[in-house]
């Protein structure tokens, strides 16, 4: 009897210590990666990074063209993807909440949410780059927009579902048509949540590399021409990190630090926004 008791306690203690260890293990990676990123990247962080072009190997330079390229592509992707995402989420939560179409779309959207982004790159290559005959910034933006849509659809639907139906009923009772109820009541009530979704989508795409490789490609020079290949921070990191040149590798680390800080800041802001909503 005592033996069984001791064995059960022992087993419990082993599992508990393992679970402590696992948590330390998980947090350890975060610390190791971020720490190394700061050590390697911060050294190269200077004003020059934001004012000079990517250099040829062996000389000095910065990351101005990929930073600008990334900003252009990201903004464009959000401009294309957000309206589609919000409208689709609106249909699912407001018009067709119980329809068959909504169930199918929700299922497919959830799959798209975690589908490999490199396949989206191949898709856009097939439908845009190959027919146009050349790589272009706009193709990169469309590829990233395909990744924005599922994130925005999901959060918009979730947030609109949270809007109390009494609000809608009250508005409808005043004689408002549904389109007005949605725009004047539901959207306003869910605004913070929808903005959170957009921020999360931006965080998701700003580090994406794979879909850009075959769409926007890369560009050694400054270019704001959407119809031409365009540099982007992730693509430059990929190219520079795998190069044998020490100064290119250093720039890659600096770029990596910039992206990570931006992405983490975005996701923390989004989280804060979401939780402030939940409490109110």
């Amino acid at each position: 009897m005592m033996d069984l008791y001791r064995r059960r306690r022992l087993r419990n203690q082993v599992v508990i210590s393992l679970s402590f260890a696992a948590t330390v293990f998980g947090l350890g990676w975060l610390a190791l990666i971020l720490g190394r990123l700061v050590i390697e990247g911060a050294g190269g962080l200077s004003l020059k990074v934001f004012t000079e072009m990517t250099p040829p190997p062996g000389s000095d330079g910065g990351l101005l063209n990929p930073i600008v390229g990334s900003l252009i592509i990201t903004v464009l992707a959000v401009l294309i993807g957000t309206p589609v995402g919000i409208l689709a989420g609106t249909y699912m939560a407001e018009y067709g909440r119980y329809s068959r179409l909504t169930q199918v779309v929700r299922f497919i959207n959830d799959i798209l949410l975690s589908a490999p982004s490199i396949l989206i790159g191949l898709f856009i290559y097939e439908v845009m780059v190959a027919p146009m005959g050349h790589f272009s910034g706009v193709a990169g933006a469309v590829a990233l927009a395909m990744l924005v849509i599922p994130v925005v659809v999901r959060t918009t639907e979730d947030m609109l579902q949270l809007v109390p139906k009494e609000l809608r009923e009250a508005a409808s009772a005043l004689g408002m048509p549904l389109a007005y109820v949605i725009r004047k009541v539901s959207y306003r009530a869910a605004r913070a949540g929808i903005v959170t979704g957009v921020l999360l989508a931006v965080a998701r795409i700003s580090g994406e590399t794979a879909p850009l490789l075959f769409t926007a490609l890369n560009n050694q020079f400054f270019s704001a021409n959407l119809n031409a290949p365009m540099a982007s921070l992730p693509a430059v990191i990929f190219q520079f990190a795998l190069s044998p040149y020490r100064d290119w590798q250093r720039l890659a680390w600096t770029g990596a630090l910039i992206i990570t800080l931006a992405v983490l800041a975005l996701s923390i802001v989004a989280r804060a926004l979401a939780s402030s909503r939940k409490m109110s």
Partner: protein
Amino acid sequence: MVDVALRGAAPAELAAASRARILGRLRLTDTVFRNLTRLAAICVLVILAGVMLSLFRASLPAISAFGLGFLVEQVWNPVTERFGALAPIYGTIITSFIAMAIAVPIGLLITLFLTELCPMWLRRPIGIAIELLAGIPSVIYGIWGLFVFAPFLQRTLQPALIDIFGPVPILSSVFAGPPYGIGVLTAGLILAIMVLPFITSVSRDVFEAVPPVLKEAAYGLGCTTWEVMRYVVLPYTRVGVIGGIMLALGRALGETMAVTFVIGNAHRVSPSLLAPGTTISATIANEFTEAVGDLYTSALIALGLILFVITFSVLAVARYLLLRIERRIG
């Protein structure tokens, strides 16, 4: 519309006409908006169908050239234009398998810590920190893996594995060869770190949905924390946990950049986990822009189609399982 009713000064017919006009306009707006939103929803379906169709169409040349033999052929030779997908498929599966073998137990243990053991005030910060691992872009894992993690493994873990398993008959070929640093094992380990947060966040959601009364009853009978976990929480949430694992598996199978940096891009099937290999996504990322010739491009896209079929099936099963548990929890 309230305005319309108040504008009583106008003659009755006029008021009725303008009322009808306004109502008509409202009805039109409503119809337009409604159809616009439906169109956007259909758009989501079109994206998936588009991905599938365009991949299929573009891989037709490769399919007609190699047939089903493409799946089991190991040769990958752009010069003679002979292509087979065996090495990338093998690499994709084996790296994901390593990742899941490590991430599943560790992820569940972290969830156990977060839901049962951790003091309340620490739960949020630790939960967020683990989820931040998912927020780090994969290219960052790649550069870190290449410059920090791979050299570290080359100096420590890999020589140790070779020493320990060298004399053991079968395992000696699994851990054979010089420690390159990069290779299948390194890619699998990095994938494990990357998918950890997905397992943790899904299983945390389903663990927290277990009715407290069930756990309290078990504790009341004198069960230990581990026994409550093993005999109450896990059986209750099994479907959801499996769904979360499949979701993470879907991620691991399709992950591109991190793997591309550290796997070594070698088109061969080697029994050794320490040898360089390749995965489907890494092959595409490395070779697509440099591919010359229609057949080469088509073979790469055919690889993409295979990846699509694999991940789509895994993710569909994952979503189906999660949907089932969602319904049960309500």
